[in-house]
Structure formats: C-alpha cells, structure tokens
C-alpha cells in the first residue's frame, strides 16, 4: 500500500463521514428550525394536563320553589386500562359484581372517548355496597376504582318526567356540531322537556385546572385555574300539587276506562295511554302537563344500553318517552265543534238566534253516491239553536256548516281552514318544549300531495264535500295535539288572545337572583267577536249541566263553581274511539283550562270528563268521590 493510495482511501472514508454529518445537520435543521412550533406545542401537551372542573347543573323548580330536579352525589366505577392486568378476568368479575354485561364494559373502555391514563367511567350510580366489595378485594381489581360524581336527583320520582326531560351522553354527531362547542366527549346533554330546551341555562360553565405533570403523570405544579360557574335554576309555571293531581287523575281514569266495554267492538277499552294539560288561560302558562305511560327518570342515571333506550321509544311498550300532550296529535272529535261554530258564525253560515234541524242523518243535496253522514244518536232531535247544538253535540247541524264552507271554496278558497288556522290548529303552538307536533288541518292541496306520496294509504287525491263535513265534527284527516286544544280553549276563555304556551317562568341563579324572566307571549287574536265568546262559554256550561257531560258531572256543585266544557269522542279507523274533554273553570272568568285525552278510552263523557271533574274538585278543595264513569252520550 503506497502512501498515495492510503491518502486516497482516507479521503473516501472521511468523505463518507462528512456525508453522515450532512445528514444529521439537515435533519436537525428540519426539526429545530423548520418544525419548532409543532414540537413546542407537543412538548406543551406532554407537560400540561387540563383537569376539567365540572359545573353543577342548575336545578328545575316548580312555581312555588319546590325542587323538581336537583343534584346528588353518585358513585361511578372507573377503569384505568393501563393498570389492568388480566383484563378478561377483571372484566368478567366486574361484570358479575356490577350486574352489567362484560361486553358493555369492554365497549365503554374501548370507546376511545377518553385520554390515555384517564380512568374511564364504565358504570354510573352504583350502590354503596359495590364500593365496599371493591375496597375489600382491591388486589383482585387492579386499575378499577370509583369516583363520586354529581347526578340528577328526582325528589318526586316520576312526577312530570315528560315535562322535565332527562340527561344523556352527547353523541358523535353532536360533538362535531358547532352548536355543542365546548362539550367534551362523554358530556351529559339535556334530552326532551325542560332539560333540553333550557340546556344553555342549566349547564353552567365548566372550569379547569391546568397542571404540570411529569412523564409518570405525577402532578408537579398548578399552572392556572378557572373556577366552574354553576348552572342557573329554571323555575317553572308548573305547580307540583296540580301536576300531581293531574297525573293521579289521568292514571285513575285510564284504569277505570279499562273496565268499560266498548259498544262497537264488544271488548274492554284498551286505554293504553293518555295526557292532561292544565293551563292558565290568562297567560298561556302551563300549570300541569301529564302524559301516560311515564317512566322512572332514574333509568337514565345508570347504565343505559342502546337496546334499553330503543324500548323506551317502542310502540309495543306504548312509547313511555313520548310526551303525548305536545308530541302526539289525534282527531279531536266534538271538542272541535266550538271552533267550527265560531268559524260558521264568522262566515255567516250560522247565527246565534237561528234554529237548525238536527236529523239522525245528513246527505249532500244532489249527491247520488248514497253517502250518508250520521248523527251520534239515531233519534231525531228536531230544530235547535247553535247553542243547543253544542250542548247536545249534534253532528248533523255541524255537517251543514261544513258543506256550506265547501260551497264557499269556489269564491273564497279554503276559508274554513284559514279560520281554523287562526285558532292555532295545524301549526306549532310555539311552546318551550321540544319535538312539538303541528298537527294537521287538511285541505285540497294537502290531500292531493299525500295521495301522490302514498297512493295506497290515501287512494283518493280529490277534495270532496265529505272532507269538509268530516272536519266539521273534528274527524277526517284533522289532527290536533292536546296542547293545541288547550291553547284554543284558552283563547275562548280569556276573551280571544292566542298565547304561546310556556312551561318556564324564569331563570335564576342558585342564590335566587333573576337572570331572565319569561313574559306571556301573545301569538295572535282568534277570529271571534267578543260578545260571541260569552255566548260560546254559556253554551258550553250547558254541556256540563244538561248536555253530553251532565252524567259525568252529576252531583257537581254547579252553583258554586261554574264549569264550561266540551266532550269529544274521536273515531279512528281500526281503533276504539279516543276520549276527550276540554273544560274552562270558572266559566264566567276562567282561571283554568283543562284538557284530558285518553287514547282508545271510549266516549268523552265516559273517561275524559270524569278525569277533568276530579282535577277541578281537587283544585277547588271539594270532596271527590274518585273517577265516576259517565254515560256514553256524545
């Protein structure tokens, strides 16, 4: 090896080494000069841990300040997956101890909702004895621990569950929704009722604790904090006492209905469900709102599987989650007649002093198809005034008005529907409860459209006189929610103002200082002259004293408390009739409007009227003899 060759080879090797230096320098330039910001941020994320400080959720109070929904401590079981050895054994034993399927526990642990090193809550609201059990056998459950967490407390159990709503974990879709900015995965969100509608007041603001931690997760320093702001309390117009008696009366009425034999089908009434609305007609405030079947709100505190949740919506279980007072609409039957009468008066088809025939049957003049519209009774009741027609609920009188509106269509279009719409039918009441149904006031356009969409269900797309005639007695394709009916009767009761029904009275801080007051909200004036409102209420007094509801109100002290009301028996194809009753008390200057509705509960006079009677008796502190089934006469 000559020195020249050696020098050359040294240069080659030194050159290779120089190349390695170039590689390292380039990489350093990239990491330290070009990507500094990114790595700084990651170093920060490593070092800083934000510990959320939960804000206690606001309470829901009734109008007298009684706590309907509060908060209490609840034990939740957590699992730190990084500390669990033999995960299968631990999960199986934990599953046995908690009585929750191991698959559900595993699903929660693997949900990816939590940060690494963060203990994952797997089961909420367990009993204290589970904790004793865990504490005794700590070594068998490595990584399993428990925390005390705030959950909803329901001092009155099932009372007003539909009105109040519940809490549930935010879902994947919502978490991406800008409306839910600031919510973390696993956060609880109000569902249904007041909990949902007033979420932004109830929720409060989460605080945080900024901690410096080392690689082992040990806290070394506090870097900063933001104190949580507790949620505001929501005060309802609802009165716990009225709510209680509305619910009790509804349930008793439903139980009583099941003992009645339906004269059409010959079977006992099914009466699976129903609802009651008690409203202050002077301002549209909801004093009580009952829906049956209901559910235990504690159900949502513990572990709710998807299947359990689905059952709550299942028709086979009668959908206990459904708030039937606002979320469901039905044909209103004869409870609708006062508004048809008002429309007929307005259109000039009826006069207060005139007499109208009430035959057992009605046919459209010139109709050769042989279609006959029957009255509810086969007796010919002769001629009567409009007021008497309301008292005895004569269908054939109203058929005539419906037909006349049909004739008007050529000149005036859908004037019948327009007048009814101004009473709030077929549109949202604007209540502060979610998932409200607008119901339906059918017209020619609707019928043509629905026929096009569902030709099998709706085989005819043309608007016939019969459509108007059916609507004139609250039947046909007309649908009304109990809340809509309460709003319309309230307008009748207060002299003509249509209010937006409200359940919330005000929002206040935990110390009671006011945050926001909700004033009564007028939605419009109903199309009826003031003197005629008095006439209408007087006529409806007759319903209770001498008309279709007189048997249900037999023995009621009418001289002390004047009640005006209207029964309704809504026919639905393939079902037993729905029982309705709407009342205003006291009749001359109403403070309460009460609507009761029992699905497949028979005649209005049989079940719904007795329910309302019992509520009135309790409201006025009268002796009540319980639900007394009335005679079917409407």
């Amino acid at each position, binding site marked *: *090896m000559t020195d020249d*060759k*050696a*020098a050359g*080879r*040294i240069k*080659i*090797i*030194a050159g290779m*080494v120089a190349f*390695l*230096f170039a*590689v*390292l*320098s380039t*990489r*350093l*330039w990239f*990491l*330290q*000069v070009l*990507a*500094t910001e*990114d*790595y*700084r941020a*990651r*170093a*920060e994320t*490593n*070092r800083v841990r934000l510990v959320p400080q939960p804000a206690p959720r606001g309470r829901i109070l009734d109008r007298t300040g009684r706590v309907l929904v509060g908060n209490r401590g609840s034990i939740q079981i957590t699992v730190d997956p*990084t500390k669990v050895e033999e995960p299968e054994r631990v999960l199986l034993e934990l599953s046995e101890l908690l009585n929750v399927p191991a698959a559900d526990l595993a699903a929660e642990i693997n949900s990816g909702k939590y940060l*690494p090193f963060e203990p994952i809550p797997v089961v909420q609201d367990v009993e204290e004895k589970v904790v004793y059990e865990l504490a005794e056998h700590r070594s068998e459950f490595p990584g399993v621990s428990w925390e005390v967490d705030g959950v909803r407390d329901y001092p009155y159990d099932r009372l007003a569950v539909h009105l109040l709503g519940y809490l549930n974990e935010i879902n994947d879709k919502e978490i991406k929704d800008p409306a839910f900015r600031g919510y973390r995965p696993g956060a609880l969100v109000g569902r249904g009722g007041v909990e949902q509608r007033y979420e932004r007041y109830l929720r409060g603001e989460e605080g945080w604790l900024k901690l*410096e*931690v*080392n*690689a*082992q997760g040990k806290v*070394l320093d506090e870097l900063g904090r933001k104190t949580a702001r507790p949620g505001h309390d929501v005060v309802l117009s609802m009165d716990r006492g009225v709510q209680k008696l509305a619910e009790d009366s509804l349930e008793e009425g439903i139980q009583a209905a099941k003992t009645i034999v339906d004269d059409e089908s010959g079977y006992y009434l099914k009466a699976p469900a129903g609802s009651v609305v008690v409203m202050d007609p002077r301002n549209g405030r909801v004093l009580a709102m009952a829906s049956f079947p209901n559910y235990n709100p504690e159900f949502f505190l513990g572990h709710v599987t998807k299947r359990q949740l689905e059952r709550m919506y299942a028709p086979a279980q009668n959908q206990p989650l459904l708030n039937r007072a606002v979320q469901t609409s039905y044909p209103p039957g004869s409870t609708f007649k006062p508004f048809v009468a008002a429309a007929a008066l307005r259109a000039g088809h009826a006069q207060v002093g005139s007499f109208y025939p009430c035959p057992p049957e009605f046919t459209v003049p010139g109709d050769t198809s042989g279609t006959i519209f029957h009255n509810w009774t086969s007796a010919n009741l002769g001629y009567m005034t409009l007021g008497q027609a309301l008292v005895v609920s004569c269908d054939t009188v109203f058929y005539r008005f419906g037909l006349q509106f049909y004739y008007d269509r050529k000149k005036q279009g859908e004037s019948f529907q327009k007048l009814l719409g101004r009473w709030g039918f077929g549109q949202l009441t604007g209540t502060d409860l979610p998932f409200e149904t607008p119901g339906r006031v059918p017209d020619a356009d609707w019928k043509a459209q629905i026929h096009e969409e569902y030709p099998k269900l709706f085989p005819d797309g043309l608007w016939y006189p019969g459509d108007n005639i059916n609507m004139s007695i609250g039947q046909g394709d007309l649908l009304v929610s109990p809340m809509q009916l309460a709003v319309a009767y309230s307008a009748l009761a207060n002299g003509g103002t249509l209010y937006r029904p409200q359940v919330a009275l005000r929002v206040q801080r935990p110390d009671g200082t006011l945050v926001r007051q909700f004033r009564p909200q007028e939605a419009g004036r109903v199309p009826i002259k003031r003197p005629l409102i008095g006439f209408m209420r007087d006529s409806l007094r007759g319903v209770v004293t001498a008309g279709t509801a007189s048997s249900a109100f037999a023995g009621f002290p009418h001289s002390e408390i004047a009640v005006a009301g209207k029964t309704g028996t809504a026919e639905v194809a393939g079902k037993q009739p729905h029982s309705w009753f709407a009342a205003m008390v006291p009749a001359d200057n109403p403070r309460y409007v009460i609507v009761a509705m029992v699905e497949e509960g028979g005649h209005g006079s049989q079940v719904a009227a007795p329910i309302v009677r019992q509520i009135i008796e309790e409201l006025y502190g009268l002796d009540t003899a319980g639900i007394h089934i009335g005679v079917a006469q409407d």
Partner: protein
Amino acid sequence: MELTAGRLVRDERVIRHLDPVLIVTTIALAVYGLFMVYSASHQSLEALNEDPGHFLKRQLAFLLLGLVALLVAASVDYKLVKVYAPLAWAGLIFVLLLVLTPLGSETAGAQRWITLGGFQFQPSEFAKLGVTAMIAAYLSELRGEMSIEHVWRTTGLAVLPMLLVFVQPDVGTTMVFAAILLGLLVMAGAKAKHIGVLALVALIALFGAFRLGVVKDYQIARLTGFIDPAEDPLRAGYNRQQAEIAIGSGGPFGRGYLDGTQTNLDFVPEQHTDFVFTVVGEELGFMGAMFLLLLFGVLLWRAFRIAAVATDPFGRFLAVGIAVMIASQMFVNVGMTLGIMPITGIPLPLVSYGGSALITNFTAVGLLLNVHMRRFK
C-alpha cells in the same frame, strides 16, 4: 527545533508532537457531556431525595480515570499494542462470553454488564477498541492485493465478538462493529465486489437470525417502531417520539440550560446515557447541537489527519479504525434521537454518562495521540 546544516531537523522527542487540538476537543466534548449529564439527571435525583450531582460526580471521576487511560495509551509505543492485540482480542472474547453466563448482569432485558468489586463494566465498550486494534494488526501484516480470502479472515476477526454482542442483545454495538470492519476493509483496499458479497452474506445471516428467533421481540418492535412510531406510541415508538419532541421543541436557540421541560419532566427515557443528545437539542437548540457536531467534526478531522501522517500501516489502520468507531457511534446515537436510525442502546462517545465508554474513548484518543507522536520513528 534547531537549525543544522541548512535543514530543519525535527525534534525527535515524542512529547513535542502531541496534538493539542485533539486534546482540547476531546476534553471539550467530555466537559460538554458533564453539563448535559447534570441537566439530564439532577431533577430525577432530587425527586428521589438523592444528591442531584450524583451522576455528575461519578462522570467527573470517570473523566479523570479516562485522562489517566489516555496518558497510558499515549505513552506506551503503539507498536506494542500491535504485539498484544491478539491477546487483548482473545481476552475480550472470553469476557464477552462471561457476560452471557450468570456472572453477567441484566438490565432492561439485555445482558451487557459484568460486576466486579462493586463496579459494573460493559465489556462490549472495550471490545470495540480491542477489535479495531486486532483488525488493524492483521491488515497491517498483509502484503499485496487484498484477496477474498483476506476479506473473509478479516471479517472472521470481527464476526465472533459481533455475534457475542448481538445476542446480549446489543444491536447498536453490533452495527458499530460492522462499520469498523467496513471502514478498515475499504482502507485495506478490499475490492468493491468482495465487500458486496460480504454485505449480501450479512443480510442473509440477519434474515436467518430473525427467522430463527435469535432476535428478541423487543428488538423487532424497536426496529419497526422506528419505521412507524405512531403504531404503538406507548412502547416502541414512545422513546423516539419523545426524543424528537425534545429536540424539535428546542428550536434554533434552545429553551435554556436546565430549562427543558421534556428533560426535566422525564419524558425522554435514558436521558443521561443513550439519549443525552436530546438534552443538547432541547436546552441549547440548533446552535448547541451544531456546536457539538462541530466538536465531533474537529475530533474526526484530527483522527483522519493522524491516519494520513502515520508512518506505518498499523498506525494508519488503527487511526482510521478509531475514527470510524467514533463516527459510527456518533451517527447511530444522534441519528436515533433524530428519528432517522433505529432505537438501539448505544452511548454518544465522550458525552453520554458511563465509565466503560468514557474510558474506552479516552484510551482511543490516547492511541491516536500515540500514533501522532511517533510518526517520525
């Protein structure tokens, strides 16, 4: 120096031919290391209620021992090293075998140490230098063209210690052995095709080792973690990610000495030893890191220069071997903290905490000085 008969006559006393640049650079690297070791370890030691200067003091003691080793290695004529190289080689093979017996001690799944009289030694560190000397000795005896047989024999000298280190397992040191072998073969003028054949055989052997399960799972995980750190951020890739974060977050000028959060809060593991470069990167930034690389550059420049001026083949091979040994360790170590090399337990020469490595490297520098000083004999 004196002028005689119009000609510059060199002073023949070897001590006059020390390489001050090499000495200053070496000590500068070691002192740089002292600062980094303190920064990397004081916080953790304080947390354990121990003397925060514990590792610093030990490293300082190793440094003094290293200086003694340097003096010894520089003063004995390196030709004696060539004479004793076979003996040293055989002795090291024996000690590397001992490590694998129950006499050796294990840390983090690797059997790398021997404990003697309360001190732990890492024979693989000494073995690097021993093997370099042995190969240099062998190659310096060859005359004429480098044949394939010469290549195999040279490789044989390296393969036995390589295997013993590989099964400890210590993939990093194995890679350094391979680099030394390659460097010295190039230096000896091995033909490119011979080196190609060698590389092919090595690849097949490595593949076989994987298939036969000689390579431990954790090694595979570390190697694959190098490819995709996100796959298992809690284990294999975690070290790599944290090292990258530490270095990247240092930025151009660093976060300040003793002020690195990644360093202080233990996010980077093994920080005073294998990952010491992350402290440099985080606390002193790009400037500090480049300065460290510059020191290494100067050191290697001196080493190659010594190889170039060496008057005999052994001295030349020895100097080149030492240069490649230090360069490859530096590259593998710094490269792994930058995420461009697999994570292997290998210290940064002269900087990382660790007595065996420090003494070995000081000895190596001593040998370089030795060759430099005796280049006129």
